[in-house]
């Protein structure tokens, strides 16, 4: 071997040695000193315009950059003063008057006034913007007509009035008990009028006003860096009204799509918290990182829709038999394994203080009896075959395979599986072109209405072909009344109807399984998975 080769090998060896010895501190190790929080954040956000975006990753970032009239308690989610330091409610519970704090500022130092909120509400409701979540504001008087662009329905008709720079009056269409909770949704958050005008973004989507350097917000943090598919970084906003109480010196959000990659990033000390955990790792992590894997109740239900326009699902007996034949306890303890709660009704227990009656159970004998009854009543020898539709994902697949096995083994049904790519699946569901399809529903706010109004006749998310006049009446009545006990009675009866008619088979209530490092303090589990960052700090426990 000649000399050049020797040299090359030696230097390669040295390089390898250097690589193996020199290891910089991980983000988690240096967290206590730097106070920079690193978070896995699911997918790349659709954008950072609060009036355009629609998802959870977007919420996680925007809640650092913007603040609404109110905020929420990090533990209980109870409404707390935000930009508004106080508010009053009229006796008919339709008119809210907010007092804005005089210290509220935008991140460029401009004063934040009631005009800015009016501008923001007008923008999201402007039909030309095509804002998807504009319907969140339809609770405001005249907002729906304005948003539809109806002739004669001008902005003057919408229940938003600026009384003076620091007083905002909002008038509602009907008394809405959960209105203040709605204000915590980013569709109600303000945007900086000067910046939007500069980019012509009032009625235009997709202008670069949301970029670092352009973005002006009013939250505890301001946007510093944005690299698509890589990282979004925020730094403290010195003009935030409560800046002195913000401990973190920065937050980095990583859009890590793959749960396996995210879990590896966590184990390598790269992030403080994951968005999720791969199902197949739960057992292992329970053993190895018992203090770091967290199981937190989440406001969501996993269920199967049944298409009642297709044979044999047009028969309530078959539908109920399907719901009774599922061994939910076995499903959650052996497959999902995150301590999920088996679902024997639709609305997650405790949603807005409501726990539904358990109208369903695991009862194979009854299920078989119902099938036999159906067969003899219709004069058939076998139940016609059905198909389970799910969008491609390993966890949906495993659950579908398990349910297929239960229906086949317990009821002798011929069940096929059909997986489709996400958008194709959505198309099949909205066109009611399936037998039974997997679905999940996450509550938009902490009230049973967000779950139960799905099954209204012709509801945009019903998609089962099911309809019940009594059910519609109950949900309408609950929405119109202010009397808590009467509302709960309506929801109670509505759940009973669902259990009897079974347009859906509830399977389990969601649990958020995440990894969170013990140094993350001031981060409290709650059903909406909201964590106001101004309360978070990094510190050895």
């Amino acid at each position, binding site marked *: 071997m000649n000399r050049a080769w020797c040299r090359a090998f030696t230097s390669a060896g040295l390089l390898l040695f250097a690589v193996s010895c020199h290891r910089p501190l991980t983000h988690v190790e240096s967290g206590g000193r730097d106070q920079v929080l690193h978070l896995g954040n699911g997918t790349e956000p659709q954008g950072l315009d609060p009036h355009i975006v629609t998802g959870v990753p977007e919420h996680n970032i925007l809640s650092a950059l913007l603040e609404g009239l109110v905020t929420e308690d990090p533990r209980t989610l109870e409404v707390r003063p935000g930009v508004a330091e106080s508010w009053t409610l009229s006796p008919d519970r339709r008119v809210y008057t907010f007092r804005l704090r005089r210290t509220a500022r935008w991140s460029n130092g401009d004063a934040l006034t009631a005009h800015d909120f009016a501008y923001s509400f007008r923008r999201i409701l402007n039909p030309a913007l095509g804002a998807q979540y504009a319907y969140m504001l339809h609770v405001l008087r005249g907002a729906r007509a304005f948003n539809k662009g109806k002739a004669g329905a001008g902005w003057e008709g919408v229940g938003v009035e600026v009384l003076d720079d620091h007083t905002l009056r909002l008038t509602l269409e009907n008394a809405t008990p959960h209105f203040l909770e709605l204000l915590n949704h980013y569709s109600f958050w303000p945007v900086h009028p000067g910046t939007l005008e500069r980019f012509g973004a009032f009625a235009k989507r997709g202008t670069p006003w949301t970029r670092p350097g352009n973005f002006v917000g009013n939250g505890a943090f301001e946007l510093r860096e944005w690299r698509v598919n890589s990282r979004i970084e925020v730094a403290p906003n010195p003009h935030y009204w409560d800046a002195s109480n913000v401990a973190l010196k920065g937050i980095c959000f990583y859009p890590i799509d793959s749960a396996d990659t995210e879990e590896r990033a966590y184990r390598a000390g790269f992030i403080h918290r994951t968005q999720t955990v791969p199902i197949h790792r739960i057992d292992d992590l329970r053993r190895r990182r018992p203090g770091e894997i967290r199981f937190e109740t989440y406001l969501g239900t996993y269920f199967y829709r049944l298409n009642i326009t297709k044979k044999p699902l047009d028969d309530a007996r078959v539908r109920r038999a399907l719901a009774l034949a599922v061994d939910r306890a076995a499903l959650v303890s052996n497959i999902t394994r995150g301590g999920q709660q088996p679902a024997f009704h639709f609305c997650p227990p405790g949603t807005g203080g409501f726990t539904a009656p358990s109208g369903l159970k695991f009862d194979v004998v009854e299920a078989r009896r119902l099938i036999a009854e159906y067969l003899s009543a219709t004069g058939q020898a076998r139940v016609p075959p059905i198909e389970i539709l799910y969008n491609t994902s390993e966890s949906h697949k*495993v659950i579908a*395979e398990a349910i297929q096995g239960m229906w086949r083994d317990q009821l002798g049904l011929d069940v096929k599986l*059909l997986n489709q790519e996400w958008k194709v699946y959505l198309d099949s569901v909205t066109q009611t072109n399936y037998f039974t399809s997997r679905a999940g529903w996450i509550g938009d706010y902490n009230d049973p209405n967000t779950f139960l109004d799905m099954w209204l006749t012709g509801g945009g998310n019903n998609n089962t072909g099911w309809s019940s006049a009594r059910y519609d009446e109950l949900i309408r009545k609950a929405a119109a009344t202010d009397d808590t006990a009467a509302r709960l009675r309506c929801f109670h009866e509505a759940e009973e109807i669902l259990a009897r008619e079974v347009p859906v088979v509830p399977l389990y209530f969601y649990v958020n399984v995440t990894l969170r490092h013990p140094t993350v303090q001031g981060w409290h589990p709650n059903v909406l998975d909201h964590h106001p960052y101004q309360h978070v700090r990094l510190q050895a426990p």
Partner: protein
Amino acid sequence: MSTHAAPDAGGASLWRDAWLRLRANRMAVAGFVLFGLITFLCLAGPSIFTQHAFDQTQLSEHFRGPDRNHWFGTDALGRDVFVRVLKGGQISLAVGFLATAVSVILGVAYGACSGYAGGRVDMVMMRAVDILYSLPFTIFVILLMVMFGRNFILLFVAIGAVEWLTMARIVRGQVLSLKHAEFVEAARALGFGAPRILAHHILPNLLGPVIIYATLTVPAVMLLEAVLSFLGLGVQPPMSSWGLLIQEGAEKMDIYPWLLLFPALFFSAALFSLNFIGDGLRDALDPRAAKD
């Protein structure tokens, strides 16, 4: 005389020679034996060696390591991995063979015609290949699915549609360099038509690269099948395939290694044996080898 001998006269003895050479090649014979063994196991194994069914779930038995009852352990639903690997082999072998055959036939025919015709025809044919390379595969597959529903034949159409393109380009390149070779010019001077020249003079000289690339296509096709399953076009669960089993096992290798190990072993063994068969075939069919 050129060594690019055309096996024109006495074809029968040439095939017999090839067969003799193949039989004398120890590696090729080993490849055949191993491959035969795997095929037999996959086809007959599920009913002979195990009483487990590939879709029999037993939730409480999930993620068990290999033991006397479950030789290869169990998966997330407590299903027997041994029988699933064998069942999956049926799918993978079928897909691997048929889709490769489709891509070889299409690719060789297309590439040979394009290269031999040359000029404007070649230009149009090759630009068509460029266009097909570029079209978005995901969308193409989704459209196939939506228009024709799930159908096993579609799987071959989809896989064939992408896999023959590189083969066509390889063959075309070879034909371009062969068509001005002396023995081809000689055949042309003798008045042979294009089909005859292609079939009898050019094709035998293409076999080497074609066989090699075909053996490389088999694993690519088997893995592509797993990707197509994601779009809903592949096999229908609870059925599985080697590609799918490997894909699902990959991220679990450090905690449930048997889920990756066993399907990967079968997959690799099949590919190794195919490879030896391919090399043996190549050597045996080499038109020049007869002169050795």
